[in-house]
């Protein structure tokens, strides 16, 4: 272990906890804000040949703060027949699952919140918690549109959880570990046919898995073309219909924060995470990585996350919404068989080489 971990070790426990909370807030909210401004406001507008917000701040960069201010001023309304406690709890559950998810993302050789041995297993398990929040939001709203949206969300998230897990299994087989640091190490210290200048990013060797994972992420995040749960033309706004003001804001932040964290996990799994190929600097193991990677690592991960988010948002702004039965058919009849074949091939090749 090097200096960064020694510095952390001298901080008292409450100080470490405080640092972790602050770090978690930054790691969740900063990507979310950047994604909303850069992609949702600007890229979407440019793809529709308009400029997007231009008034608040230079090039509308303060627009998100203006929106947050607007939402915070709004009255906190809940339906008369709503189950009030659960109604208020639902957005918090969705946001909590995001914060639980960011915990396992490694940002550098020593910059992580926790380093679970079965990190990716934990991430996939915790990401399903948001389904609970969405489901109870739909149920407790006492609104048929919300209920339909919540049920659609539940069906969709469960259907696409499976190909996502199966796509990750290919990576886990190839890396030989479920630890996210281990997966980063395996990619960046690996080599392709003896050439180690690029390491071995799994986006190349696990390309099928990458495509399936990205499609599933798109569905998990309920982004178009998989946004049936919030289909505004059929269900008003799905499970978010009855939410206003601060609680809607939490749903909104939760959506894009989860998108950011999922993009981070995707870049850890497939693009090599926080690291550059170790052969560039002559590193071989995790301990030999220089200390400055603890500071450069988050930036590298952020860049890779932005690339992934660009793909997600590009698809989102390009495609129309699928129908509910098309969605389910696509998951069960196309994605899951392909990912099973992918696992089989990966296992065979792993044994063969």
């Amino acid at each position, binding site marked *: 272990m090097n200096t960064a971990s020694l510095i952390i070790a001298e901080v008292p426990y409450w100080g470490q906890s405080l640092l972790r909370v602050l770090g978690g807030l930054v790691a969740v909210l900063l990507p979310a804000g950047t994604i909303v401004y850069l992609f949702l406001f600007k*890229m979407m*507008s*440019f*793809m*529709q*040949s*308009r*400029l997007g917000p*231009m008034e608040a701040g230079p090039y509308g960069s303060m627009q998100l703060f203006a929106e947050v201010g607007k939402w915070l001023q709004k009255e906190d309304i809940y339906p008369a027949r709503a189950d009030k406690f659960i109604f208020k709890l639902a957005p918090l559950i969705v946001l909590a699952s995001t914060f639980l998810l960011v915990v396992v993302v490694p940002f550098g050789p020593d910059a992580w919140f926790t380093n679970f041995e079965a990190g990716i297993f934990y991430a996939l398990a915790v990401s399903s918690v948001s389904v609970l929040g969405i489901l109870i939001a739909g149920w407790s709203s006492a609104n048929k549109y919300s209920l339909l949206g919540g049920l659609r969300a539940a069906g969709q998230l469960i259907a696409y959880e499976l190909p996502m897990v199966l796509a990750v299994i290919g990576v886990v087989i190839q890396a030989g570990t479920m630890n996210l640091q281990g997966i980063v190490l395996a990619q960046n210290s690996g080599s392709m046919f003896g050439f180690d200048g690029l390491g071995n990013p799994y986006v190349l060797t696990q390309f099928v898995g990458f495509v399936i994972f990205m499609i599933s992420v798109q569905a998990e995040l309920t982004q178009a073309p998989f946004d049936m749960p919030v289909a505004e033309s059929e269900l008003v706004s799905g499970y978010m219909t009855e939410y206003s003001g601060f609680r809607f804001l939490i749903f909104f932040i939760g959506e894009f924060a989860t998108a950011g964290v999922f993009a981070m996990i995707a870049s850890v799994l497939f693009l090599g995470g926080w690291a550059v190929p170790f052969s560039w600097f002559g590193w071989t193991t995790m301990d030999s990585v220089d200390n400055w990677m603890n500071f450069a690592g988050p930036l590298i991960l952020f860049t890779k996350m932005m690339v992934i988010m660009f793909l997600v948002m*590009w*698809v989102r*702004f*390009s*495609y129309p919404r699928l129908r509910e039965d098309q969605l389910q058919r696509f998951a069960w009849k196309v994605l899951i068989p392909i990912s099973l074949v992918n696992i089989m091939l990966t296992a065979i090749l792993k044994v063969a080489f």
Partner: protein
Amino acid sequence: MPKVPGLFKGLGVTLGTFARTVTQGANTVQYPHEKETPPIRSRGVIALHEGNCTSCMLCARSCPDWCIYIEGHKELAPPRRAGGKPRQVNMLDRSGAPSMNTQNQALPTCCMTKSNSANGWRPFQKLPN
């Protein structure tokens, strides 16, 4: 699988629009800060500044559809300087035009202005000077 080429084509459309907006600007106008220039061959509204009109008939002659008519007569106006001769001025009696498509040519006289509002046919409009 037959749908896959179309999916990539769709991605290309949005990316193309994105690149065009970045390089050449958007198709929109930032309204309160800038105003749209009327397009070529726009069908504007013409207006008459009656006091400026000398009944020179240039507007009537330039109208491709012969839809403007001007009738005037000559009058004597009092001289500018004491002891001078009375001036001859042209006075407008009647005039009319529904609207005019001038093929974006400037109206030739001092008396007609072309309005930018392009909301179709309007009766001949008389404006104060």
